[in-house]
């Protein structure tokens, strides 16, 4: 009841990040960008990274992705997963170097140290364990690992910037059922883990063994029964909330769309087979594939039009989205151009050892990649500092509802 005074007005609207004065487009309202734009941007960066083993542009690309993430991520849980991708990247690089060390092959003149080589039987000829370790060999592993790590980190940036589930929401209407299934499956997974943990703990209460086939049965049965109960409850809830209302569609039309999609998919199968098997007549190949695809798409479009459903606050594809996605595409294109102009600089040779070099084109690549840090609108940040919720009971008394139990009750389970 003491919170009554503070609850009025204060903190009702979400605090927004202040407009960025350095931005060329300062004053834009904070909003979440279409997830597709972030993914296109990230894929562009990853494509660019795949075109080079030069550590300098790769490191700059990682830095660019990190800067964009730091400046434009929201405060949702997935937004903080970026660190995990960085760690994973470091692990990849380390693994590559260690692999080169173990299975080295020992090419190169600059031998750093001599490890005792483990002799292998004759049938394993061509594989060498340990032996002399050359700088070239380690450097090659490092370059390779860094390229892979950069690509992974770019995708991690997309994950941190855009809720992957929102991407599913943006699918066309015909695939709505599929996307719903995926969303439900994604939310069931953590529940399943939770019930496994709960049942495992409960098994200990009966003093039962924690390992072995018997333990597995003791855990699997309650967990599966739980999952089944839950999915039935979910299905009932979805049904009573109107999922799959099709009342207005005549049966004939439903059969038509179903038939079209089915025939299309069969066509695609036959076409693919025809394309791969050289002995069948030519018309069963590419033409069949195209016809099949066209039929299936037509069926889906028709089905999509029949779905009587609207979308709450859909992500719109606006000019900023085009710009951000364009930055990604441009990054990839410029890198490809750089590759055709000066391939040696993009793949610096490890033997003889040379210093990697930057070219103006590479700098341009990085500049384009990092541009969304300023071009994209700032993210909306959810209100964390709102006061306790205040409820007005029908009899006019006002009291604050307990809020602090939320995080704990989660942790308790």
């Amino acid at each position: 009841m003491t919170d009554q005074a503070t609850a009025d007005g204060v903190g009702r609207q979400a605090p927004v990040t202040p407009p960025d004065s350095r931005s060329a487009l300062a004053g834009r309202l904070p909003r979440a960008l279409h997830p597709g734009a972030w993914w296109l941007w990230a894929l562009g960066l990853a494509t660019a990274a795949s075109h080079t083993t030069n550590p300098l542009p790769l490191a700059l690309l990682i830095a660019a992705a990190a800067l964009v993430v730091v400046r434009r991520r929201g405060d949702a849980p997935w937004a903080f997963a970026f660190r995990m991708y960085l760690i994973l990247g470091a692990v990849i690089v380390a693994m590559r170097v260690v692999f080169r060390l173990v299975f080295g092959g020992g090419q190169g003149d600059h031998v750093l140290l001599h490890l005792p080589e483990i002799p292998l039987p004759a049938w394993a000829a061509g594989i060498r364990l340990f032996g002399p370790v050359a700088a070239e060999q380690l450097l090659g592993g490092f370059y390779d690992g860094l390229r892979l790590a950069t690509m992974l980190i770019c995708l991690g940036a997309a994950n941190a910037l855009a809720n992957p589930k929102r991407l599913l929401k943006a699918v066309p209407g015909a695939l709505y059922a599929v996307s719903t299934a995926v969303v439900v499956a994604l939310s069931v997974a953590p529940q399943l883990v939770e019930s496994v943990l709960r049942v495992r703990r409960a098994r200990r209460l009966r003093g039962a063994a924690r390992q072995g086939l018997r333990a597995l049965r003791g855990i699997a049965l309650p967990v599966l029964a739980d999952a089944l109960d839950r999915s039935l409850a979910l299905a009932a809830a979805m049904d009573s909330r109107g999922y799959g209302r099709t009342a207005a569609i005549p049966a004939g039309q439903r059969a038509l769309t179903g038939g079209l999609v089915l025939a299309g998919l069969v066509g695609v199968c036959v076409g693919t087979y025809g394309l791969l098997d050289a002995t069948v007549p030519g018309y069963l190949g590419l033409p069949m594939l195209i016809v099949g695809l066209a039929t299936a798409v037509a069926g889906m479009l028709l089905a999509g039009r029949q779905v009587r459903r609207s979308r709450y606050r859909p992500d719109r594809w606006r000019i900023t989205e085009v710009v951000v996605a364009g930055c990604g595409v441009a990054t990839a294109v410029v890198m490809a151009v750089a590759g055709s102009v000066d391939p040696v600089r993009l793949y610096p040779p490890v033997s003889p050892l040379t210093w990697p070099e930057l070219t103006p084109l590479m700098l341009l690549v990085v500049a384009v990649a990092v541009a969304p840090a300023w071009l994209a609108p700032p993210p909306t940040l959810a209100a964390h500092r709102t006061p306790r919720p205040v409820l007005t009971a029908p009899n006019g008394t006002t009291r604050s509802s307990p809020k602090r139990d939320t995080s704990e009750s989660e942790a308790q389970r």
Partner: protein
Amino acid sequence: MIDFSRVTVHYAETSEPMLRDVNLHIPEGELCLVAGRTGAGKSTLLRAINGLVPHFTGGTLHGTVTVQGRDTRSHPPRDLADVVGVVGQDPLAGFVTDTVEEELAYGMEQLALPAPVMRKRVEETLDLLGIAELRDRPLRTLSGGQQQRVAIGAVLTSHPQVLVLDEPTSALDPTAAEDVLAAVTRLVHDLGVTVVVAEHRLERVVHYADRLLYLPGDGTVIDGEPAAVLADIDLAPPLVELGRAAGWTPLPLSVRDARRRASDLRQRLADAPAPPATPPPAGLPVLAARNIVVRYPGTVAVAGVDLDLHPGRIVALMGRNGSGKSSLLWAVQGSGPRHSGTVTVTGPDGATDPKTLPAGRARRQVGLVPQTPGDLLYLETVDAECAQADRESDAPAGTCRALLDQLTPALPGDQHPRDLSEGQRLAIALAVQLTAAPQVVLLDEPTRGLDYLAKRQFTAIVRRLATEGRTVVVATHDVELVATLADRVVVMAQGEIVADGTTAEVMLASPAFAPQVAKVLAPQPWLTVDQVTAALAATRTRG
């Protein structure tokens, strides 16, 4: 608004119909409470309203159910979504999306409402239920009461004229339950929504209800004014029992009603001998926990708690959801995490810490029945479970079955535990744990989903355990249960013990934990109807 005309519901596997020839008319704007024992057909009745019975559950429905003129025969649940909103018992199981705002919009998306309408209704509903500050929160991180309010909001956005709630407060602490019920009554009063709600703890809802549907269990439905229906049934909240004991007609349904009539009763009780105080425990504690700390990432669940448990005592552990009750029980038993502190169980074979023992021996010191007793059971039949329990505890064959027969006589041994009622499952889990003959028995939320009769049975069971010299700790939200059962009450908040004393001390001290009888008869120290009837009998014999 809702009409049942000669409705009979049959499920394939049972010979007796769940509902038999039911005729009902629920007019617009009523708050209608559905009561009855577990398995009496409450859920069937509720689910028949929007056609989930029989479209979703199977079975046969004779007769007609119409809601706002729509026959459920020709309208499956999805086509009634704009008229009837259904909220299930476990809100989390019914969530389709993962944030509050999307969940509120989901139903409207299915109804193909235009985007501006959806936006407006989401904002309205957020305010109506007081959940505006939760709008971006992932649903899984909400507390039980918040989840329940979001689930109600999620069906309200479709503007249904009928709201069907199946035990909306069964898992909630008293305050969270109040929040949910306050929201529901507000809907009835301000928006004229017709609400049909099933609830075991009648004392929480009955004073809001305009009508009570009582299902005695033979498939019929008794329909009428709450006070009139309650007068004749054995399923009654403490207030009604107090009213019966005091001879009030009509029976009071709210504390306010009762209190206005109680001055006479208070006078009669003024010279009655006060209820016997619980004697302080004699001897050494059987279990001594010192400075227990349990941490989870980002939160301290139990913050340095000391707890002494004496033999033969029943201790109630109370506190809101997330106050650390479960964590404390698990830490004391030794199967859950414990980051510091010691537990000493003094048994016949010396003092031990259950945490250091292998699981099989720890359960002979301290037995714990978890919040979902079904987690302990994994075999196909009751008999198999009992036999397995005997093997696990090296007990002579038949020990567990004998215990089970004491707890609930004549439970068919060839039944699958999952097919039994909540109370029967609890009895099996309890029997399984008692087979190991622990001196200390910890029960985590044992009574949720139990009706009054099952609760009465449960009370008798726990009392018997205590007279055998065992210590029982019951973590619960149920104030009335604590009043009738416990010798001592420990209240936790934020991982600490904030109150610890005899039941009378703790319960009479704070209105949040006071049972209905205490609220009516305050400042006199009566907690239960049994105490009052005993005192009345005593004064009568004296006078």
